[in-house]
């Protein structure tokens, strides 16, 4: 009996050993691959997902969304609500308390001053802050005491968790960025390439567009974490190569965004060194219809601007015909498998904001043809392409270069040609397409095409900012250096009124109703945005990497401090 107890005790201590022995840096090195290489580690100066996610290894917001979409405090001690008094009754201010004793990786204390500085940094009128929309409606930011920050809004904010919440707007150190305000922000290379942070890791070396070497933050709040002493974040290559590196060769422990066909991923997984993980957020692969005329005959500066409406896509019947001629089930089967679901919506998640439309889910060629006939588009000269008033129904359809997207293009082209629409395909390198360079004619913002396809999503669980993008006047145009989020150049005063209404509404059920109405105005009622596939986030994780939960509401690397090596 005694021996048995002893043995049990010994066995138990062996089992418990890894947990008890877990200490910072005990698990050595971890490798992460991002096939789009990070080029800066300051999310306020870059809208790129790759940059935001890489920087989330180093800097943290006051609070962020967990894998279920709930807010959890990071730098803050708790999430302020009306119930705990953190948010004022009239919803015009929010008061954050910072965790006591929290240190930056250089050993100095984190204070409310740093948070206020961050807000000032992003709201600086000359700064060109990429995340300025998070600070919309902020009237003032005050430091109440060393650890208390009060943000006041110019009107009641039903969702006050914008500024300094989520991976896109983390807190940066005031001391490090003090001389980088406004127009000087991009010049502070040292700070932008190696920000001092509070998260699990700190930067040892950063080679832009290539590789980041990190080591454990010596002043991280949990003395036992992170388990990894060092990390390498390698950038570049393509989705196929990074999948191989995790699943087949095992060189890498984590690969981001594996946009590969399901049969390709399944084949790679047979390599046995890792597994694909997927989670559904609000990411939607969609077709965007250009409401303006992209014709190259128009002078530069007027091309694809609201001055010239599109010759045929401004006709709702044509847009609807194009939408219902698509077999979305087949697209999902070919391109995403279990990591995708057919959708007609712009906002497919979370549940209370999702319209769950099904008007487009069955392909209906006859109706598509009938719609085009109704709209007056008939094949009058017998060349197989519909025309009207001497104008041919000919579409230039562009997207970024990616095997799955090119398959989609080929399939959709075939369906559209069946209903008598001529289609020309074009694919542009993703770094150019999403690069936002106002000098390039090939960016998705310039939209020098009739239809384009890409995916977009929003962080957090509230689509307000996402839907507000389709405001009149928010379209990319020469005067805005071709920046802007209203890619379709959609404009409807009734929609703008709903944006304002959503901004004033606090009741969550009512917000859902308004958001669904807005979603339907863009999709079901106007077919300006044609949803194709509700995509899951697919990443590759090594079998020896533990402690990671895929988060679709925030940065994927949100829990890097919790990662450990399974032995």
């Amino acid at each position, binding site marked *: 009996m005694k021996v048995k107890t002893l043995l049990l005790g010994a066995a138990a201590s062996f089992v418990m050993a890894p947990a008890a022995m877990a200490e910072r840096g005990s698990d050595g090195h971890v490798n992460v691959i991002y096939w789009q290489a990070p080029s800066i580690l300051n999310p306020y100066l870059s809208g790129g997902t790759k940059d935001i996610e890489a920087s989330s290894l180093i800097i943290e917001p006051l609070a962020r969304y967990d894998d279920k979409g709930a807010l959890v405090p990071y730098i803050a001690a708790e999430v302020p609500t009306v119930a705990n008094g953190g948010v004022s009754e009239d919803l015009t201010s929010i008061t954050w308390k910072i965790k006591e004793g929290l240190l930056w990786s250089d050993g100095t204390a984190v204070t409310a001053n740093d948070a206020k500085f961050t807000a000032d940094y992003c709201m600086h009128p000359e700064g060109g802050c990429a995340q300025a929309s998070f600070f919309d409606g902020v009237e003032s930011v005050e430091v109440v005491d060393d650890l208390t920050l009060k943000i006041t809004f110019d009107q009641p904010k039903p969702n006050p968790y914008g500024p300094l919440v989520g991976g896109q707007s983390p807190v940066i150190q005031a001391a490090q960025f003090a001389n980088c305000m406004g127009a000087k922000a991009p010049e502070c290379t040292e700070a932008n390439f190696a920000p001092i942070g509070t998260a699990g890791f700190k930067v040892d070396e950063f080679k832009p567009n290539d590789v980041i070497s990190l080591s454990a933050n010596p002043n991280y709040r949990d003395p036992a974490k992170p388990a990894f002493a060092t990390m390498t974040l390698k950038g570049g290559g393509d989705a*196929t190569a990074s999948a191989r590196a995790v699943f087949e060769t095992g060189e890498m422990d984590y690969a981001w965004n594996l946009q*590969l*066909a399901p*049969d*390709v991923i399944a*084949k790679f997984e047979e390599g046995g060194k890792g597994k694909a993980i997927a989670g559904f957020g609000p990411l939607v692969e969609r077709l965007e219809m250009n409401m303006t005329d992209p014709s*190259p*005959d128009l002078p530069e500066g007027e091309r694809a601007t609201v001055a010239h409406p599109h010759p045929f896509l401004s006709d709702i019947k044509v847009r609807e015909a194009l939408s219902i001629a698509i077999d979305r089930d*087949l697209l999902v089967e*070919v391109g995403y498998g279990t990591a995708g679901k057919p959708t007609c919506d712009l906002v497919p998640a979370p549940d209370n904001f999702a319209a769950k439309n099904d008007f487009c889910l069955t392909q209906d060629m006859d109706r598509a043809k009938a719609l085009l006939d109704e709209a007056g588009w008939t094949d009058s000269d017998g060349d197989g392409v519909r025309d009207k008033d001497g104008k041919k129904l000919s579409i230039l359809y562009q997207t970024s*270069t990616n*095997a799955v997207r*090119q*398959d989609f*293009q*080929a*399939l959709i*082209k*075939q369906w559209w040609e069946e209903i008598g629409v001529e289609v*020309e*395909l*074009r*694919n542009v*390198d993703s770094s150019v397409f999403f690069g936002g360079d106002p000098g*390039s*004619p*090939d960016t998705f913002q310039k939209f020098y095409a009739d239809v384009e396809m890409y995916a977009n999503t929003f962080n957090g669980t509230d689509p307000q900012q996402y839907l507000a993008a389709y405001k009149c006047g928010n379209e990319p145009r020469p005067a805005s250096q071709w920046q802007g989020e209203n890619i379709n150049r959609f404009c409807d005063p009734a929609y703008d009124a709903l944006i304002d209404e959503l901004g004033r509404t606090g009741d969550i059920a009512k917000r859902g109703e308004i958001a669904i109405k807005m979603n339907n105005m863009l999709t079901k009622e106007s077919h300006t945005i044609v949803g194709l596939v509700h995509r899951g986030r697919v990443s590759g994780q090594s079998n020896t990497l533990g402690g990671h939960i895929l988060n679709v509401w925030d940065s994927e690397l949100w829990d890097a401090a919790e990662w450990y090596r399974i032995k």
Partner: protein
Amino acid sequence: MTDDQEIVPIEALSDNTTLPPHRSQGQEIWLQFRQHKGAMFGGFILAFITLAVLFGSLIWQVDPGKLDIRSKDWRPIYTLIWNGDVKAGWAHPFGTDQLGRDGLANMLAGGRTSLAVGWAAMLLSLFLGAGIGVLAGYFKKLDGPLMRMTDLFLSLPVLPLLLVAVTLFRQPLRANFGPEGGMFILIVGVIGITSWMHTARIVRGDVLALKEREFVLAARSAGTTSKGIITRHLLPNVISPIVVSATFGLATAIITESSLSFLGVGFPSDFPTWGKMLADAVPRMQEFPERVMLPGVAISLTVLAVNYLGDGLRDALDPRIRGR
């Protein structure tokens, strides 16, 4: 004296046998060329591939762009030899891709583009290279500037140049010649103007040597104009290096087009070329190796055939080697 003596020709100087019939230069070259087995083989393969891509679509009348998702991922017919259960058949002898496009039809259509680009770019670079080479070699004043320009072009990297050219010129060319035609002109143009330099250098060297020879001096003293000397005396003598570098140029152009398509710039994604087929097949390389192998082998075979052909032509066109 010796009057009645018959004049007997020296034994060694008399023709004991009848002379072989006179052969033209063309026949000589052909005879020599036939000696080179590799060149014959290369010529045969190139002729076969060219005929196949030109007229193959008349026999195999399947639309290369037609998607047939129900019969996707077919294997080539030869896989039936070792695996009877595999999805394959004579409906698609080269198999189909992940969207059910026919492999054979794509190979034929893709080869047409690849070879057309190769031939057109080769002719362009031949014309430029020979012209510049002759001018630089013959006219002393032009030699310096033309050769420095050659050096300049030699230092231009083709791929970045093409990427810039695609951004700058795609719109106007597409508006005038359509998406495929415009891209064809662009690619042929850029490959052509970046690959004439070696021809130009070789031709210049040969012309420099030739123009000091006596027959050129004789022509000049007889009052032949520069134009006459170049067309009648110099060009025929440098034809062999020109032809040889032309064949190598054809191979380079096919490879450059393939690598461009492989990188995803160039022709629209639904317009097959061998390079693009190769690029599209890479993610499924392990499951369907034939999708990489077939266009890859086609590129290699064409390039190899052209190289052997060039080798044989060089031997055949050189009078010092000929007949040995």
